[in-house]
């Protein structure tokens, strides 16, 4: 079966003021439908760059990315915008619209997709129930805690029924307790809707908690890939060993 995400030899080089930065170096991997796939690595390893290539927020310098067999580079800008509605993304700093209340934040992607106001509102309220925040419908993001904000962001990302959910350090700004509850919510979403989830993190505990497979990034290279048990049980590469040791030291 065609994997839902197939990354083929992608590289990304940034032109910085002081020369070039090779953030991602010739990376290939696949993610099967329904998996929760972790990408771990130290800060600066190239995780965010890699994940931003998956919805073309960043254009890779080389290589190809296939989503559901479709080559992202071959899409017109209109097709790309449509495709992005199938690939949700949540962020470390939530990135909610600060001038809109919770319901209107969740309506935003529906507005983009051209859903009518009434229907969008109805859907938003359903989603709020899914993430357990019904009583905050009229609140503004500034009035919410970090965990609540991330719940709103998750409700928002589910609005257009994505097939893939990209999480870039989605729990890194949260305390351990809240992290756990958000991870549980993600697990639930994965099981209930069959959404494939890509989890980017520098926290090993997060990967252990929810991922089935994991890839280790180090200085822009993918150094090891496998099941979570295999990686944490018997890491093959020095980089993976270091990463696991350092975080538990």
């Amino acid at each position, binding site marked *: 079966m065609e994997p839902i995400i197939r990354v083929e030899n992608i590289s990304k080089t940034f032109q910085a003021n002081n020369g070039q930065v090779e953030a991602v170096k010739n990376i290939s991997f696949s993610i099967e439908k329904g998996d929760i796939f972790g990408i771990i690595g130290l800060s600066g390893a190239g995780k965010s760059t890699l994940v931003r290539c998956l*919805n073309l*927020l960043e254009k890779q310098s080389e290589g190809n990315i296939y989503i559901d067999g479709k080559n992202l580079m071959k899409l017109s800008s209109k097709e*790309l*915008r*449509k*495709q*992005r*509605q199938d*690939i*949700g*993304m949540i*962020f470390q*700093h939530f*990135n*909610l*619209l*600060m*001038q*809109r*209340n919770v319901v209107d934040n969740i309506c*935003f*992607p529906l*507005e*983009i*997709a051209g859903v009518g106001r009434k229907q969008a509102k109805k859907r938003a309220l359903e989603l709020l129930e899914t993430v357990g925040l019904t009583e905050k419908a009229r609140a*503004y*993001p*500034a*009035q919410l805690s970090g965990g609540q904000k991330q719940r709103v*962001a998750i409700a928002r990302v589910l609005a*257009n029924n994505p097939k893939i959910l*990209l999480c870039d350090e989605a729990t890194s700004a949260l305390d351990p307790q809240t992290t756990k509850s958000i991870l549980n919510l993600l697990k639930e979403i994965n099981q209930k809707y069959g959404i494939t989830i890509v989890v980017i993190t520098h926290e090993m505990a997060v990967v252990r908690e929810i991922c089935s497979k994991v890839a280790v990034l180090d200085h822009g290279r993918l150094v090891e890939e496998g099941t979570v048990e295999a990686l944490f049980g018997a890491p093959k590469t020095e980089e993976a060993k270091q990463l696991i040791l350092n975080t538990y030291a």
Partner: protein
Amino acid sequence: MFDETIRNMLIDGTWATLYMTLVSSLFGYVVGLPLGIILAITDKEGIKPNAVIYKILDFVVNLTRSIPFLILLIMVMPLTKAIVGQSYGSTATIVPLTIAAAPFIGRMVESSLKEVDKGVIEAAQSMGAGTFTIIYKVLLGEARTSLLVGVTIAVGTILGYSAMSGVVGGGGLGDIAVRYGYYRYETDIMFVTIIILVVLVQILQGIGMMLSKKLDRRRA
């Protein structure tokens, strides 16, 4: 305190000043808002980077802004005459006021829009939002309080400029102040026009700040 004619003149002058200020602000935004949006999105860090467009507009804005208003006023007189039919009076003054206001408004709009969190823009892009949606719903929507503060500053500045145009017969309170205070030494009339100007600025600022506070949801 003053006789009827003077009182009427002051009242008419106040209306003329308000008329010039508000119409010029409106025209200033008709040009300045799109200008500011284009500056913000074509910048290196913007959503549609375009170095050529940015540099050209940036240059034009800087150029216009470096011309002192009084000189601009005299410089554009032929144009004013061509548009309005005369180069003095309040309606005529709207032309140089708009020309002076637009680039400065464009700059303020640009800086307001650049304050919008990059992460929120990125979130919108990840949802498949196009450029127009991002401008309308994210940039303008999220920057609305800052834009309103900008409107308040713009209107206050244009009011000041409109008074300056009194030196060359621009109409309104500035005109009265120059005619009575400078040419006739009737400083009491000049003094009253100054008080009215100060009060106008205070009222406009008060309304603007109140509205922007009321519309701001960023605080709990």
